[in-house]
């Protein structure tokens, strides 16, 4: 592979990110210029900026032909990376709109600028194929995310969760960095493909390789909030401003997965290596799912519930990942598609939580009692979101889970499929409990109806339609996932 050639046209590949930098600057400028209610525009501008970046990206940055390594091998222009970038952009756009009406955040230009920075970091995570580039991208993402989490400085919970997130993140990323350095030291390469070549020569001992894999897994596991690196998740999710919770639980997790794919499948999947770390990840997948679901049963706060559910969803996605050896393309496409469905669904769920909290001022599940009478439409949207999370057709989550089960069975991992099935059952239980509160329990006397502002309506409608389309007419989306998967190998 040619690592050195450079053309100006290569900048087109990262044009969306370049545009985002511009948008960030624009928002910062608006922060200074705009006054009063019109400051609300900053959220919409950010959202539109993300969409613009997405559309321009589709027009010019979408990879065509064979995947290429660019910029000295630091990034790889392939369909998989592009699909993930598209997901981050959509998640960013939705988050921006959801934030625009939140007290204390909606009128802060710096908030949106940091949000954009996070997305830029994630986008580079999606395409980075060099340890240094990768680490830079991850740190860009993480540091921005710490800031976003602790953004409400006068809110103790927010500040606490920001700090917690930071401490956990710093430690795990240090461990990962150590792993990276060992990898470089042993192979002499920072490029993932170079590392793969060097490793396949078989000069690195098995124990060393597993040690490195575990160290890297620490860093990525933190991003995924996979067991046993999940402890930060509930507290941070609960304390962070809800739109940020939505963002971290979707985009940040997704970013973790693309790194997982790149590092483990591209660099570390030498035959002896796989035999070492794959069982470990299988176990992590099973435990993560089970633990997330079981602990979620006990939650009384909707954000904590969704936090644990997101842990469980990470576990499901890992289940698809571990099948990559027997069914590589199916595995990667199942991961990709599952993440698509998960992003849309979870954003939808959090959107409802944000709207409800604005009126009720509470995230306790008990306070959702009778919501279906206070706002039938919002309740219906919540129903759709939760059913999709639970994997009920005709919603996105069903197809996502179906493909996971399919690839797990293709790989012959029957026990894992059974674990998944039992988990789906547990998950269905707690989602239904919430829906029971919403639909069956009586509303408190004189509870006000829940107004929904127009931008929110649009977001809700788009996401709802998205969730249904991904559950029914999912063919083009799944084809993208497949295209991504085949470009990856």
């Amino acid at each position, binding site marked *: 592979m040619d690592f050195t050639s450079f053309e100006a046209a290569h900048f087109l590949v990262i044009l969306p990110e370049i545009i985002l930098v511009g948008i960030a600057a624009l928002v910062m400028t608006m922060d200074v210029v705009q006054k009063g209610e019109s400051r609300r525009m900053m959220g919409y501008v950010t959202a539109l900026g993300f969409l613009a970046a997405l559309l321009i990206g589709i027009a010019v940055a979408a990879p065509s032909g064979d995947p290429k390594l660019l910029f000295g091998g630091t990034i790889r222009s392939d369909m998989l990376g592009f699909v993930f970038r598209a997901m981050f952009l959509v998640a960013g756009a939705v988050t921006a709109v959801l934030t625009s009406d939140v007290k204390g955040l909606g009128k802060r230009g710096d908030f949106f600028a940091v949000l954009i920075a996070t997305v830029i970091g994630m986008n580079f995570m999606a395409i980075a194929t060099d340890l240094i580039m990768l680490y830079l991208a991850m740190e860009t993402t993480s540091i921005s995310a710490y800031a976003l989490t602790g953004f409400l400085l006068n809110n103790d919970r927010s500040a606490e969760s920001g700090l917690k997130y930071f401490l956990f993140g710093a430690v795990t990323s240090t461990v990962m960095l150590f792993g990276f350095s060992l990898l470089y030291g042993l192979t002499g390469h920072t490029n993932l493909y170079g590392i793969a070549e060097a490793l396949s020569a078989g000069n690195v001992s098995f124990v060393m390789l597993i040690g490195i894999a575990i160290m890297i897994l620490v860093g990525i596991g933190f991003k995924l909030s996979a067991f046993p690196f999940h402890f930060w998740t509930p507290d941070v999710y609960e304390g962070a401003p809800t739109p940020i919770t939505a963002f971290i639980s979707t985009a940040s997790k997704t970013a973790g997965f693309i790194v997982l794919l790149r590092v483990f499948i591209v660099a570390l999947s030498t035959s002896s290596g796989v035999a070492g770390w794959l069982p470990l990840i299988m176990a992590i997948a099973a435990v993560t799912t089970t633990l997330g679901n079981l602990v979620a049963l006990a939650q009384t706060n909707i954000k904590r519930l969704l936090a644990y559910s997101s842990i469980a969803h990470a576990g499901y996605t890992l289940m698809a990942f571990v099948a990559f050896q027997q069914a590589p393309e*199916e595995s990667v496409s199942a991961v990709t598609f599952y993440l698509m469905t998960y992003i849309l669904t979870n954003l939808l769920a959090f959107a409802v939580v944000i709207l409800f909290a604005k009126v009720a001022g509470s995230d306790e599940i008990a306070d959702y009692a009778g919501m*279906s009478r206070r706002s*039938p439409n919002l309740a*219906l949207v919540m*129903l759709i979101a939760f*059913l999709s999370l639970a994997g*009920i*057709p*005709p919603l996105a989550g*069903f197809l996502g889970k*179906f*493909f996971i*089960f*399919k690839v797990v*069975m*293709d790989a*012959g991992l*029957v026990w894992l*499929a*059974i674990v998944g*099935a*039992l988990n*789906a*059952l547990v998950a*269905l*239980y707690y989602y*239904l*409990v919430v*829906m*029971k509160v919403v*639909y*069956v329990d009586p509303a408190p006397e004189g509870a006000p109806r829940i107004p929904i502002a127009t931008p929110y309506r649009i977001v809700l409608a788009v996401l709802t339609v998205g969730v249904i389309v991904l559950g029914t007419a*999912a*063919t083009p989306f*799944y*084809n993208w996932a*497949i295209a991504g998967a085949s470009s990856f190998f």
Partner: protein
Amino acid sequence: MDFPILSVITFFPGIVGALLFFFPEDNKEQIRWTALLASLVTLVLSVMVYFTYDVDLGGYQMVDRFAWIPAVGINYIVAVDGMSLPMVLLTGIVLTTGVLISWGIDDRPREFFALLFLLAMGVWGVFVAQDMFTLFFFYEVAVFPMYLMIAMWGWKKTREYAAMKLTLFLVVGSLFALIGALAMYAESGLGTFDMFIIQEQAVFSERFQIIWFPFVFVGFIVLAGMFPFHNWSPVGHVAAPTAVSMFHAGVLMKLGAYAALRVGVVLLPEGAKFWMPYIVIAAFINVVYGSLIAMTRKDLKYMIGYSSVSHMGLVVLGLATLNELGLTGAGLQMFSHGAMTALFFSCIGMVYDRAHTRMIPELGGVMKKLPMVGVAFIIGGLVSMGMPLFSGFVAELPIFMGAWRAGVQGPDFIANYYAWIAIISALAIVITAAYIIRAVGSVFFGEIPEKIEADLTPIRWQDRTAIVILVVSLLALGFYPAWMDTVIKTGVDSVMAVLGA
């Protein structure tokens, strides 16, 4: 291209259900009438499907197909055969009568009817699906609305528990069946979920079939209320609002039996043969145990709930015999039991709505005030106790005959006891007669207790219409079985061809 009648019949209720959500909430009459009209359309369509099917030709007809997600071999394929055709008709009947019966629902009728129609979409979808993915898709669509309907409009005392129990049982069942189906997909190496192709081309080793048959069969049969996975069912019946009980007992339980046959027996025939004696035993326990428990119940709905367990046991028994008679009987029993329990639950609903109790000792003399309900209940009772010239007899006769015959089919460890299974199951029918007679006697005859006398107001025309529709279908099958058994026969023939008999 012909009019895609099966796709229309499947998606029309879904579309109606979705549209209903956009209706103004407070115009309840408009919602009800829309629902009624839509259900009548589906009824007409299902009757059309039934009678346009060419019995002489047999096999799968009215096929619609569309490559859904071609990359993994997922197709949308619908077609009917002799086995599913009566079920399609039954669903039309139960939906229409369910809408009629639910006229009195005053709390959020919009959501109620919307969910009912979504449920109907799922049910129809399963009965016509010929692709495993399509089948699972609709199967879960059918399971889910039940939860909300029971939890929201059910009987206050037990609805939350019952709804949850029901949903979890059914979902875990369907997931296990899904795992089994995916195993078939992976093993076959054909890269398709198309059941036609799998049926024709897939070569599954006997060992594979024996291992995976229980996943598929048990996963689905949970929904048919088979022992020992039955106990969600009576609880669910009792808690559900009338129309949902009707749907639940009337069609949903058949969904399980049908899918177990279509995916389990047809695609894994060797597995079916291996497991058959065990299934026969379980079904036999169902039949006897269900009727014994039913006899001890004082709550009418529990009584009918357990009698459903017993009657569905007969369906499973018929399936498990794996011979022509038994399968035909199972098909007939599915229709007969569906219409019968729908009738029972609608009658009980009418009584309960007025008397506010379903306890047999607290009721009496209802016949005097609600003669039509009484007559309908009695007819249901006669069907249930297998009285000749009523549909129950027509359906149960071949099942018992099939059970007799199952003993000759091959050496298995209960081969010498099939005769006893047939005889003792038949005795369960006498138990059924005893509790039905008792219930009829004390609920519909005798003196009206003072407490409920004033409450027994006349029933609506909608209720009457529903009763007439159900009674007519029961009597039609009972008096002249040939209009249905010839149809089912064609379906049975293709199953028998697969079984190599």
